[in-house]
């Protein structure tokens, strides 16, 4: 299978020279192929970094274990599990997790194929601050299908989890197949005919609105502690009044699709569950520009990812200095309420295009 390099930077080809009555130069086509390969192989910020909305978490402490020649301190980790909804790009084969934990002792991280990766985050000193670690995850298979994933952080000391984020590692090369759509620049040269075979991948790439898709916000707190469901950190709702889950609305700006578009529908999924008699909770997205989205019902009694719920938001205006229509922020947040007699718990929300 042929593979083609993914450029480090864009080629930014110009279409200005493509004019009626004139041939399209091989150089123009070739630069388009490089640009397409850059986009297809670039990867996504699959989880924008977020700080979990909770305070200090308790660690498991150290225990002294006797050995033949003395003793060693062995950390007893307390495991906190966050649920996230992953939206991978097909071309991605590796991810990089970034985790920032303020802790005087060791911590550990598990997600996907990463199991119990130990690290030290550090603590604040006069000139020091906790530093993030970057953890490599090799994927077992390629997919562009959204799926739930657990992220577990084990703490030995009482610690603060300040940040979690994840990006897809850009590809070195992408393959010439219908899924990765690597386009061969060598087929697009001056003096040679442009065949359907040579531009087939460009056709597919330019029509694929998933390339460059944005994940807009993650809000997640632990829904399991040491492997058991926990309501300690979840947002809790017993009232029929809509209540914000985010501490404050977060900025949101979607991609523009076609030129006349001013809004785009964005989606969300939540990890939520109910308890008590007659459980019936509701969630909805609210945006400054689009108002209230359609509510979705939560009736399950174990932590379960909801189906998608939506709201319209502003899309990027490429003629504005800031990209924001009229220079104004569009903010979005998620509201929840209990319409039955139970209790609604929400532990994670992921908002995406």
């Amino acid at each position: 299978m042929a593979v083609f390099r993914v450029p480090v930077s864009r080629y930014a080809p110009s279409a200005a020279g493509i004019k009626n009555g004139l041939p399209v130069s091989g150089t123009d086509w070739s630069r388009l192929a490089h640009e397409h390969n850059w986009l297809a192989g670039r990867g996504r910020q699959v989880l924008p970094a977020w700080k979990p909305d909770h305070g200090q978490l308790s660690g498991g402490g150290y225990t002294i274990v006797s050995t033949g020649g003395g003793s060693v301190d062995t950390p007893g980790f307390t495991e906190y599990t966050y649920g996230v909804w992953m939206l991978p790009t097909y071309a991605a084969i590796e991810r990089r997790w970034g985790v920032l934990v303020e802790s005087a002792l060791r911590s550990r991280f598990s997600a996907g194929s990463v199991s119990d990766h130990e690290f030290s985050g550090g603590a604040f000193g006069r000139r020091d601050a906790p530093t993030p670690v970057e953890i490599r995850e090799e994927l077992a298979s390629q997919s562009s299908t959204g799926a739930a994933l657990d992220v577990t952080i084990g703490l030995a000391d009482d610690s603060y989890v300040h940040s979690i984020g994840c990006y897809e590692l850009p590809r070195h090369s992408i393959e010439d197949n219908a899924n990765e759509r690597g386009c061969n620049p060598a087929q697009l040269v001056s003096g040679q005919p442009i065949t359907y075979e040579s531009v087939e991948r460009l056709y597919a790439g330019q029509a694929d609105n998933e390339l460059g898709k944005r994940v807009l916000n993650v809000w997640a707190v632990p829904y399991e502690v040491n492997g058991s469901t926990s309501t300690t950190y979840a947002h809790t709702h017993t009232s029929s009044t809509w209540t914000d889950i985010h501490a404050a609305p977060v900025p949101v700006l979607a991609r523009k699709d076609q030129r006349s578009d001013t809004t785009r529908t964005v989606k969300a999924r939540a990890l939520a569950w109910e308890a008590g008699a007659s459980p019936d909770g509701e969630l909805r997205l609210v945006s400054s520009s689009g108002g209230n989205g359609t509510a979705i019902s939560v009736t399950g009694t174990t932590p379960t990812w909801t189906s998608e719920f939506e709201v319209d938001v502003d899309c990027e205006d490429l003629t504005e200095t800031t990209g924001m229509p009229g220079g104004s922020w569009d903010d979005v947040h998620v509201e929840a309420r209990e319409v039955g007699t139970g209790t609604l718990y929400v532990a994670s929300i992921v908002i995406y295009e």
Partner: protein
Amino acid sequence: MSTSLWGGRVAYDTADWAATSPVDTVQSRAIANNIAHACDSSGQVLECWTVSDANGVTRSMGPGTKSTLSWHSLYHGPHHTIRTVAGQSYTMRVRLRGRRVAASGSVRFGLAVLPAGDGAWSFPLQRNALDPAYDNAEHFETSSATGAWLSPTDPFSSGIHGDGLLTLSESQLAQCLYSSGTSETLGGDAAFVTYHRVRVSVYVRQLSETPAMTPYLTGLYVAEYVGA
């Protein structure tokens, strides 16, 4: 800056692009436009979060008085890979939410996008991170004990700050180049991939020696934008 012809994707009937169809100039322009627009719009959201006032990132500002006027590291987010056009990074639209607990006085937050290399942790570079001559940082001030999204300021009257937009210059971007081992394909041959890797850092200082203040970072937003 935007590179597409029409600032949006041109919808096209894919049936017109069958294997037996000729490729004419109109199609060529549509393809070029659509790919350029998809790349222009591929900027990602690197950081986006808010937390309640009590759960913000906080730290001691250090003993004594004058030390409180120095910049203190407050938050070094995880690493990100960023989009580039010829020569520079995509612009980054930024927002910061914060507060301070004190009897009086103000704190200033400095938000910077920096190379993520190990050497970047040294103290001198942290100070240079907020060099007013460069556009990779924005500043925000507050005298409120209640968390709120803060308006960016231009404390040095540099003319390049206070707009809530950051850009890494060509020379700064060169420091962000990073190579990592990977595979050419899933389970395939070993390969190295080179990309631009950054981190988002927040620093804080008091604007007066006394009283002692406790800063809280309660929200952050950093998103790439190709620019108008």
